[in-house]
């Protein structure tokens, strides 16, 4: 069990998540009499793998589509995790399902953030809503009006990266959610995130009613233990994975593949 613990910590799974997970699988192994058997090794690995798959799953890429008016998707997360890029990826994903998305450039802070989303919108031939010099909550509220007026049935709100410990910025994104009542609120999380994943996930989940997680940069070689931490502390499904920089590098998340990757 020590080896499993070291493997999980080596994969960047949060310390407290590893602790409770090891306790659970030890209990299960004891309960199944595995640890008293002649060769517990293989059976322990199987119990751990199955428990991990169970924990990372179930498979869930459902979107809570609106029954009336546009479906609103809010994208939130720490700085540089891939939110803006993922907005474009999600938009393309929806276009392929026959939807007509509107992208909303509600990051008024980062230099050229609006331009970045507009460029991605042009690549997809999709409209991008933006305003100069206004605050994100009202920009997003007016964007919904614009969507209704122009027959757009999905609205994807790109927001500025923010620290979970920045009370003002967390209040701002909560205000965006309040003004737009999103059908989906995604935490966009970088797969190479370390121990801090629990802290930021907990805060974002507290301030926003997260409905899911998008895990980005999975095309790298980070083991991705942050996925386990985020899933465990929020209880919210990881719905999508970013697997590259191009707009088409996006897929539904596979819990079983992630379990194998984390275990190494």
């Amino acid at each position: 069990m020590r080896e499993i613990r070291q493997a999980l910590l080596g994969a960047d799974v949060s310390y407290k998540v590893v602790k409770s997970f090891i306790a659970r699988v030890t209990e299960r192994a004891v309960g199944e009499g595995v640890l008293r058997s002649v060769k517990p090794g293989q059976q322990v690995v199987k119990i751990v793998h199955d428990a991990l798959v169970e924990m990372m799953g179930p498979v869930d890429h459902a979107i809570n589509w609106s029954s009336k008016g546009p479906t609103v998707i809010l994208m939130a997360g720490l700085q540089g995790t891939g939110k803006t890029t993922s907005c474009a990826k999600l938009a393309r994903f929806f276009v392929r399902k026959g939807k007509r998305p509107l992208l909303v450039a509600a990051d008024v802070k980062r230099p050229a953030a609006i331009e970045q989303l507009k460029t991605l919108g042009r690549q997809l031939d999709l409209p991008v809503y933006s305003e100069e010099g206004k605050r994100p909550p009202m920009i997003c509220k007016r964007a919904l009006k614009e969507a209704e007026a122009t027959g757009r049935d999905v609205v994807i709100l790109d927001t500025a990266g923010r620290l979970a410990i920045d009370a003002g910025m967390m209040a701002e994104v909560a205000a965006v959610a309040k003004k737009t009542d999103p059908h989906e609120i995604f935490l966009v999380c970088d797969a190479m995130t370390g121990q801090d994943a629990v802290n930021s996930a907990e805060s974002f989940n507290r301030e926003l009613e997260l409905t899911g997680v998008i895990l980005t940069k999975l095309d790298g070689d980070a083991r991705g233990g942050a996925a386990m931490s985020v899933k465990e502390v929020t209880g919210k499904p990881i719905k999508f994975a970013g697997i590259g920089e191009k707009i088409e590098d996006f897929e539904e998340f596979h819990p079983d593949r992630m379990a194998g990757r984390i275990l190494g």
Partner: protein
Amino acid sequence: IVAGRKVDADLLDEIEEVLITSDVGVEATGNILDRLREAYEEKEIEDGEQIIPHLKMILKEMLESDGAGIRWAETAPTVVLVAGVNGAGKTTSIAKLAYHYHGEGKKVILAAADTFRAAAVEQLTIWSERIGVGIVKHQTGADPAAVAFDAVEAAVAREADILLVDTAGRLHTQDNLMRELEKVYRVLGKKIPGAPHEVIMVLDATTGQNAIQQVKVFGKDIPITGLFLAKLDGSAKGGAVIAIRDQVDVPVKFIGVGEGPEDVEPFVADDFVEALFA
């Protein structure tokens, strides 16, 4: 972790937890705990009161280096190449260095050699305008090495003191992009022998143990002379730099502590280690 306790397994477990949760990682933490056990056996530590100061001393030693700050070239311009994985904070970190050296009266030029990402050139251009420094750029889609080449020519012609070269984010697992970075590096050296005089790799303080791999693999292709640890104003401790120093001899030169141009500080090992235990 409290003074006046005996050095036992429980105390070492608590120390392990502090190190692991700070992203020091399994391997480096194991090495550090071994050194603590050794110190206890050799009577350098005799009770719990001495263990934390001894631990801090070990960590500070691991992080010490002889040079924070940019090492200036013998003749201007000093060329600084900035690299790192996607979203680490390269472009913003360059803006901070530009603001700092511009404020010191140095002539600064920026090179927008991220010709790939949407609005990357626009982002750096806005910074150059806000700070009041020159920028060399081509259109998106241009060859980054061509931008680097032109930038060095301009830096020489305009008698700049420092040239900061921004590059596209790339994962070390992308061979073609690592080749591209290598090419930018070589082109800089062709124009000015000895350039780039500094190769700064930007690391995101929220990154876990993959940071070790990033530094090692980037470092295989280009000689990294310093690390810029960004986003240390968050709740992440950035302890991965300890794991890195445990394996590679690359100093942390700067830390990023916010999103504004003034949010950069020289790395001070003492302060960093104290913050781990705060």
